[in-house]
């Protein structure tokens, strides 16, 4: 099959690149070996401290509402983090002391929401906090499984019965000016978090839980749907195994499922992620890129990869592909002229692009612009 651009990796970077190119009338395919890190998305686009029009257009066309405001957001362990562009689900505050009294509501027997840590974090900021538990008959059937009282399964039920939950919360409210809820609302129906906010006479703050992330899953579905509506071909559950390169130019890639039906394209984008998604592979002696064997900036001395302090920065998380200023990766010191590396496969080799989601978005736009300029 022939496309204008083939993108390897269906995470945030790959999807943003794919959507951008499709919008400009290019034909693209995204090959994704499984679902992506958006499933662990906190809801905040890290290191995006602005909301560029180009990004807003893509997000809003996909039905995703995101805002930026200076300040902080409340994290699942009761800590506060500097804000960045965030999904509408996430509340951004000017300062940590965002309320006087907070009512934290959890579901009975839900262990993935850390209400006691949140209460502690709030109290440290001078916010009075109390915790109450809901026990709803609709959730009892989830309890039959010892392992399924988890965010996504709860969210599926919440899409149906959120109004009942709101009623229960009203009964619990006293003079609290904030209500803290686990982020298990709005999986399929994106309007639910907003409607809960409207229905309660207090600031409603949705705080994350252990993965999978409900807003992350939803965002991923929205971006994918947008990409496919624009005519993109999304090949889910397939893996790019190798590429045909001739004189510094990639002609096609070979995938696990399509075998000898190669994917040909004029340009290629590598958005394969870091170690978790196997964009980079580590052995006791080296770190390498598995599809083409691209140059990686990683030490061969394994002892330098780690910081023994778990809480400290980990050197291996900075490893990434060596690229030139146009994001062309290198193979044996030579740039591949029609390939671009974007997202976390870059590691921290391009600090000017930011980190995390910010790096994914900026690098995606950069690669897309370069591809479009070569038309």
């Amino acid at each position, binding site marked *: 099959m022939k496309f204008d651009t083939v993108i390897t990796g269906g995470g945030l970077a790959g999807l943003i690149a794919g959507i951008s190119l499709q919008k400009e009338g290019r034909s693209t395919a995204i090959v994704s070996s499984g679902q992506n890190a958006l499933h662990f998305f906190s809801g905040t686009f890290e290191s995006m401290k602005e909301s560029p029009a180009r990004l807003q257009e893509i997000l809003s066309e996909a039905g995703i509402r995101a805002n930026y405001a200076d300040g902080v957001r409340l994290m699942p362990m009761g800590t506060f983090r500097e804000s960045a562009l965030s999904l509408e689900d996430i509340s951004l505050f000017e300062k940590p002391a965002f309320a006087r009294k907070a009512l934290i509501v959890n579901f009975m027997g839900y262990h993935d929401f850390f209400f006691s840590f949140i209460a502690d974090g709030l109290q440290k900021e001078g916010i009075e906090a109390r915790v109450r538990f809901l026990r709803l008959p609709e959730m009892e059937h989830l309890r039959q499984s010892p392992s399924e009282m988890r965010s996504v399964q709860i969210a599926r039920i919440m899409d149906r019965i959120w109004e009942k939950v709101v009623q229960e919360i009203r009964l619990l409210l006293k003079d609290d000016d904030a209500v803290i809820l686990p982020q298990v609302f709005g999986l399929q129906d994106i309007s639910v978090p907003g409607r809960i906010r409207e229905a309660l006479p207090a600031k409603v703050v949705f705080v994350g839980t252990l993965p999978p992330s409900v807003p992350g899953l939803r965002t991923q579905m929205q971006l994918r749907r947008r990409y496919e509506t624009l005519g993109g071909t999304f090949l*889910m*559950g397939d893996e790019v195994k190798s590429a045909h390169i001739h004189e510094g130019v990639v002609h096609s890639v070979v995938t696990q499922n399509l075998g000898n039906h190669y994917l040909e394209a004029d340009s290629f984008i590598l958005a394969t992620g870091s170690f978790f998604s196997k964009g980079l592979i580590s052995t006791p002696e080296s770190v390498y890129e598995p599809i083409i064997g691209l140059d990686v900036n990683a030490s061969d001395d394994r002892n330098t990869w780690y910081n023994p302090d778990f809480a400290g920065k980990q050197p291996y998380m900075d490893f990434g592909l060596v690229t030139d200023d146009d994001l062309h990766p290198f193979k044996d010191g030579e740039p591949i002229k029609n390939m671009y590396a974007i997202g976390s496969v870059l590691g921290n080799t391009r600090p000017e692009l930011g980190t995390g989601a910010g790096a994914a978005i900026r690098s995606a736009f950069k690669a897309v612009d370069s591809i479009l300029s070569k038309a």
Partner: protein
Amino acid sequence: MKIQEKTVSPHNFEECMKCTICTAYCPVLQANPLYPGPKQAGPDGERLRLKDPYFFTNSLKYCMNCKRCEVSCPSGVHVADLIQAARIKYDKSAPKLRDRILASTDFMGTLARPFAPIVNGVTSLGITKTVLDATLKIDHNRTFPKYSAHGFEGWLRRHSKEQAAFPEQVAYYHGCYVNYNFPQLGKDLVKVLNALGVGVQLLDGEKCCGIAMITNGMSESARKNANHNIAVLEKAVDSGLNIIATSSTCTLTIREEYPELLGADNSKVKDSLLLATRYIFEKLEKGAQLKFRSDFHIKVAYHTPCHMEKLGWGVFSEKLLRMIPGVEFTLLDSNCCGIAGTYGFKKENYLVSQAVGAPLFEQIKTVNPDVVACDCETCKWQIEMSAGYKVMHPVSILAQALDI
């Protein structure tokens, strides 16, 4: 190999990162809390089963083998295979009579076909369904597939001379559905391939692919069929033929389940077994031409069968349908229809089946197509029964659209 250069484990289970993504995509978990879920039944459970087979639990039978966990796994763990392999290895209970009946499609087909009109009449009767529900626990809500009085093999044999005249030849693995229930699909395939200058032959004695036997505790019978089919396919390959199949499930079973679950070596034939829509698409991509009717207008909604999703070849069926002028095409959201082969016929699974497929049926009704396109026969039964829309194989739509 250098120390620890890579990781090797059955079905890649040790690569599991415990990320829980598979649990978000398992259609059974959404409907049945008695199912431990792909993570618990798969990689979590495997470590315990390696310690002691005692840790195997029968609740693994609720797995539909839809492979959606595998498709979504970022680590490449063959979760569904792990679960099915555990069932094959540790579940020593004898399959119930009902499961044997449901799984023995060749046997039932051969018996029923000569009496097709009577059988079809009887199985549509309410009283029959009530009796089957009470005795065998086959849910009374289920509609039974109709048997065809005339088999496909007989028809193709009658036309073998004219088929042999075509410059290019392929063999056709038709599977149970085409042969016993719906030979029209086989005829449609022949029509389309002939239009491409390709003649169609039968294989030398194919048997049921065995997927239902694998999931119903009859792995020994499945293995016998697998070895037989591989030999038959090898014979075709040796005489220079590619083998085309129209059923996405039969294709996945022969390509993947044979080596992964039955330990049957299909390396000589795997890459020669091609799904019809992929084969036709590749031919057209390489320059072959098909002439389409100018008066053919149809609104088509394409449903990707779970096994097609796993094969990753839904893109071929989709692109093929989009090529037909006059087709108004909608790609339905990827959602399991719920029948999972023989699974949905069983009384204890019926409600779960229907709950799983509900979002799909809803979407179909909203889209309101003229026809739903789908490559899998059991999806067809499920959608026709539960959504009330006609389902056609992409090849059949193609055949109808041809100007011949």
